[in-house]
């Protein structure tokens, strides 16, 4: 199918992008690898697409003593290929390689994935596990949102209408940190049925129909999940923990 007619507005400045996004029916576009399918299926019908990926700074990756500030328009493939500094002992590159397919990873961005907020996506769960911080800009200036308070429901985030995600700040893992990651899907690149993340002192279940859940132990899996999804989440978290502990 083809999308409905819309206007395309590539952003040149942050002020211009914020002004364009204030118009009714305007929607930000980043890599478009999740947005374009829903638009082609006419499930999403924007009046204007404001292309935010050309914005200055969105393609910067800045290493600091405490971590990494990744611009929102950095692609999954750039993370996979090590084109950005590694502050997570290889964890982010490992996750990136498992996202969809290479042709999608070449276009899809970390910021776009976080804002689309599909529960089955990798980055919302990983950023929550890493205790990262989102840096967003709106008409009133910049504000910071903890990744653990980011996803509020499937496809719904803490981003207010008209705001843009600029970057995500990822805290550095101590050198030699062990991690584990398990993604359960029927075929490489498909939507995850369950995600498990194990970092030092952190256990997280993702792709669980809503926001990811930090767990003290397997017994903490959210009780509202149906039997199948609880079982898959238990498998994913168990595997992730075993992978971390075997590293």
């Amino acid at each position, binding site marked *: *199918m*083809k*999308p*409905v*007619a*819309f206007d395309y507005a*590539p952003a040149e400045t942050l002020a211009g992008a914020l002004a364009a996004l204030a118009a009714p029916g305007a*929607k930000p576009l980043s890599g*478009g*690898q999740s947005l*374009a*399918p*829903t638009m*082609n*299926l*006419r*499930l*999403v019908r924007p009046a204007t*697409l404001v*292309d935010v990926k050309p914005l200055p700074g969105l393609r910067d990756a800045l290493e600091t003593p405490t971590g990494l500030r990744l611009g929102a328009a950095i692609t999954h*493939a750039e993370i996979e290929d090590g084109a950005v500094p590694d502050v997570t002992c290889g964890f982010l590159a*490992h996750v990136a390689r498992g996202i*969809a*397919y*290479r*042709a*999608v990873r*070449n*276009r899809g961005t970390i910021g776009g994935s976080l804002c689309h907020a599909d*529960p*089955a996506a990798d980055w919302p769960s990983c950023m929550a596990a890493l205790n990262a911080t989102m840096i967003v800009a709106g008409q009133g200036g910049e504000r910071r949102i903890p990744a653990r308070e980011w996803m*509020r*429901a*499937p*496809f*719904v985030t803490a981003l207010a209408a008209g705001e843009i995600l600029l970057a995500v700040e990822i805290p550095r893992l101590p050198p030699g940190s062990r991690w*584990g990651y398990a993604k359960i899907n029927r075929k*490489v*690149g498909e939507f995850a049925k369950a995600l498990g993340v194990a970092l030092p002192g952190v256990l997280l279940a993702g792709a*669980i*129909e*809503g*926001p990811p*859940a930090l767990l003290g132990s*397997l017994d903490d*899996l*959210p009780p*509202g999940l*149906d*039997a*199948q*999804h*609880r*079982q898959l989440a*238990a498998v994913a978290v*168990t*595997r*992730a923990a*075993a992978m971390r502990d075997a*590293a």
Partner: protein
Amino acid sequence: MITLTVNGEARRLDTPARTHLADALRDGCGLTGTHIGCEQGVCGACTVLVDGKPARSCLLYAHEAAGKTVTTIEGLDDDAVAEALRAAFSRHHALQCGYCTPGMMVTARDIVLRLGAVDEERIREELAGNLCRCTGYRGIVRAIAEVAANRPVLPAAAPRREAPAVAAPVLATVAPAVELPNRIEHQEALAVPLEAAWAILSDPARIAACLPGAALTRHEGAVLEGTFTASLGPISASFAGVGEWAVGDHAGSVRGRGRDGANAAEGQVEFHLTPAPEGALLNVVLSWRLTGPLAQFSRPALLRGLVAGLAGQFARNLERAARGEAPAKRLSLWALIRAWIFGR
């Protein structure tokens, strides 16, 4: 008007913003080697090179490619790796109908150039985003492996760590399949007496008044007509349909069909009321079948959260109605789903 370079040639295209690159290449440039399969990024048939990197040309609007360099299968005629791949594809019977082949060639060339001499397992992993319904992939994988084996060995990345297949605790069993493929059972405690709840639940008009997004437009005997609107983030669907209403002893059901554009839904809601110490217990079984774009996109797990959230809101509205109060303002989806998943 946009300008881009296609197969080494500058092109000016006058195309609306909604035209994706695949259509712009085929219709605007006459380059029909780029094939369109699913238009949702799954099949890989439309894969082309954008600034030298493989990309889905159906998931990229032509205006996003302004100023960029695009290479299609036609632009790989004189490319040495593509030439070797064409010969190997022919030798290994790596195509039959040829529909997936342009996308396969672009992806195969990227595998060979980016990864060098790789094993078949990695080739299969990298090919997961290109579907072929003829060959069973064996010929394709062998052809790529043969060409890759003749490439210089690139500095290999550290082997990818895999999550071990350890046994997880078995938590529960799986519900049996039913006539309608999707099924949710849900219970809501109602803080009102059984008969007060039944006074509302025996009347479709009062049910609709308690259900967020629902509107009843006609009720004659067993026939109901109405609309139902649900939204999930940026995605919204508004179904209009007809149903049959049946009522029993503190129990009822609605079986209906509805449409929203190309989306069609068929569903059944069965409910019965049972006494509870503090009022009544509403037991609901919802089953449905969804066809059309929404079904292609959505996963039942996402709808499960939506339904459970709606049921909770319906129950609170019913309690208010039984006490003669107006329905509450619609809660945010966030509040609904959080309350349901985390039980708070």
